[in-house]
């Protein structure tokens, strides 16, 4: 529980974000601000690790020194943050590990989402789609990777490949790295299209901007109907919108985890008797043309 001794005292909540300069993370921050601002006695401080593990460690060390009532960490890397989060827990600071796993359970609770699972969902959707299209699970796929060596790219690829390996007739005919960026995805997709003048069935991109870029490239060559585009992330103003507009066939929400974190975190702050579970897993949801409109409508409210 927190240390809210007097009513007048404010709660200090520190959120150590691994990299602000990424729309997914910016959305997390925004959402977290939004939710905590409904609680006037909470001071939220968001630290930006700038995609640098050393930096994020230092920032958490700083935070520990300030003795916050709640620490939320979105770790950049599983190994690097394990130790310092252990120090936070040892210092008696209630700590939430957000979204990504660390090596040891050095946290009070872990609110997770799972890229491997998302990869598997995408793989399964692709198998189903191709089975519907060709009567059997076969076809040609182009895969656009996020930055090499980054957890998201590794697991979104790994999960999908895990499903596809059961279906040898689904071939990955072109596999390129576009570093999460839309412009690069457009150039890489253009090359894939040129190298494969026909017969591409699916484009699986590790995030929505890359999937969208791939769509634009195909559209320009008048080939966007030939294939279906699959993305991941499902941010409202990006992925969901793209699905709604018929650009993407499907996208998979990479959960922000923020709502759950604030819900659990608030209880931890205010209810000394509350003990959180060790782990909450937030399921991804599938955004299809059928439910996209509804989600967009909700967001607009």
């Amino acid at each position, binding site marked *: 529980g927190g240390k809210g001794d007097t009513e007048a005292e404010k709660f200090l909540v520190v959120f150590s974000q691994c990299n*602000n300069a990424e729309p997914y993370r910016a959305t997390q921050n925004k959402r977290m601000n939004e939710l905590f601002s409904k609680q006037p006695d909470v001071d939220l401080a968001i630290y930006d690790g700038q995609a640098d593990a050393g930096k994020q460690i230092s920032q958490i060390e700083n935070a520990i020194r300030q003795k916050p009532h709640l620490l939320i960490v979105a770790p950049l890397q599983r190994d690097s943050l394990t130790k310092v989060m252990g120090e936070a827990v040892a210092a008696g600071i209630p700590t939430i590990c957000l979204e990504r796993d660390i090596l040891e359970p050095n946290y009070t609770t872990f609110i997770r989402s799972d890229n491997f699972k998302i990869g598997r969902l995408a793989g399964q959707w692709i198998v189903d789609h191709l089975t519907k299209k060709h009567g059997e699970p076969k076809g040609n796929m182009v895969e656009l*990777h996020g930055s090499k060596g980054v957890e998201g790219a590794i697991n979104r690829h790994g999960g999908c490949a895990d499903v596809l390996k059961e279906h040898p007739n689904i071939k990955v005919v072109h596999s*390129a790295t576009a570093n999460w960026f839309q*412009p690069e995805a*457009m150039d890489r997709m253009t*090359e894939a299209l040129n190298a494969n003048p026909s017969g591409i069935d699916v484009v699986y991109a590790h995030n929505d901007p890359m999937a969208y870029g791939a769509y634009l490239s195909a559209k320009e060559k008048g080939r966007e109907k030939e294939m279906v585009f699959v993305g991941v992330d499902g941010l409202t103003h990006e992925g969901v*919108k793209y699905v709604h*507009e018929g650009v993407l066939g499907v996208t998979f929400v990479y959960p922000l985890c923020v709502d759950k974190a604030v819900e659990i975190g608030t209880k931890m702050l205010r209810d000394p008797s509350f003990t959180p579970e060790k782990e909450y897993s937030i399921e991804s949801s599938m955004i299809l043309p059928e439910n996209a409109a509804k989600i967009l409508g909700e967001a607009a409210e």
Partner: protein
Amino acid sequence: MKDRFLAVLKTYKGPLVLVGIFLVAVLISPRTTRGEIIFLGLGNLTDMLRAITPIAIMSLSMTFVILTAGIDLSVGSMLALSGVVTGTLLVEWDPGLLPSVQIGTAIISAIVACGLVGMLNGVLIATLGIQPFIVTLAAMIGVRGLALWFSNNERIGLGVGSDVAGSFGDMFSGKWLMIGTFLVLATVFAVVLRRTVFGRYVRAVGDNALASRYAGLPLRRVQIAVYTMSGLLAGIAGVLLCARTTTGDPNAGITSELDAIAVVVIGGTSLAGGKGSIIGTINGALIIGILTNILGLRNVDFNMQLMLKALIIIVAVALQRKKVSN
């Protein structure tokens, strides 16, 4: 006879390296089922040109900057700023103007904003006498912050609809518009460099700064002008990229300053200033463009691509270099 042939070879080393890479690309290109060489398809060649266009445009003004013995590390950030400004003015601004007027305003605002950043770079370099590297490094950091702040850390999607934003995307992403813009700019820059007094000053300033001062050249004005141009061209590249991706992305263009500089240097321009040409830079852009394209067509593993790229850059530059003079 043989001597003349060798002399010609020596003068046109850059284009020869380009031709070499082109031939290799033709040889190793995959083929269609009908046996056509994919690399040589008109569609692929123009795709290749368009892909390199944003970098190539920035490398034109970068050539000028480098000729003055300067450098501009901020072009990538300015490119992002331009896209974000364009996007915002098209999507979040509803002035009730004619679409064409709104589009024009958005484009001009974006380009002018970058021009002003470039001018600020130039003024700091020319009047405070701080090294260009450090001024434009600061601008690279600061302008990235500005673009992120301006866009609220979010990508601004133009959509593919038929509203103002969507029609901007349609109008300005055409292959020939992009390639054409580059060709026009390249011609202008080549002519300015070779055929105008200003161009001569640009080459002189980097060649011998003291002599320029002694000759009474307007040193500061030349510096301010080249950095302003660098801003303007980064702005244009940003608008085109925004149209092509139908997105104003505050994270666009990260590391593209290095790409633009690499193109210039592969084109034979010396970072010490004074020596270089626009033809060389075009050559450098084509070398990089073909290289990226053929590695993509062959779908070479990304890591292998990186290593091959490194190797080929070294070889291309080594082949072009003059014999080490005493």
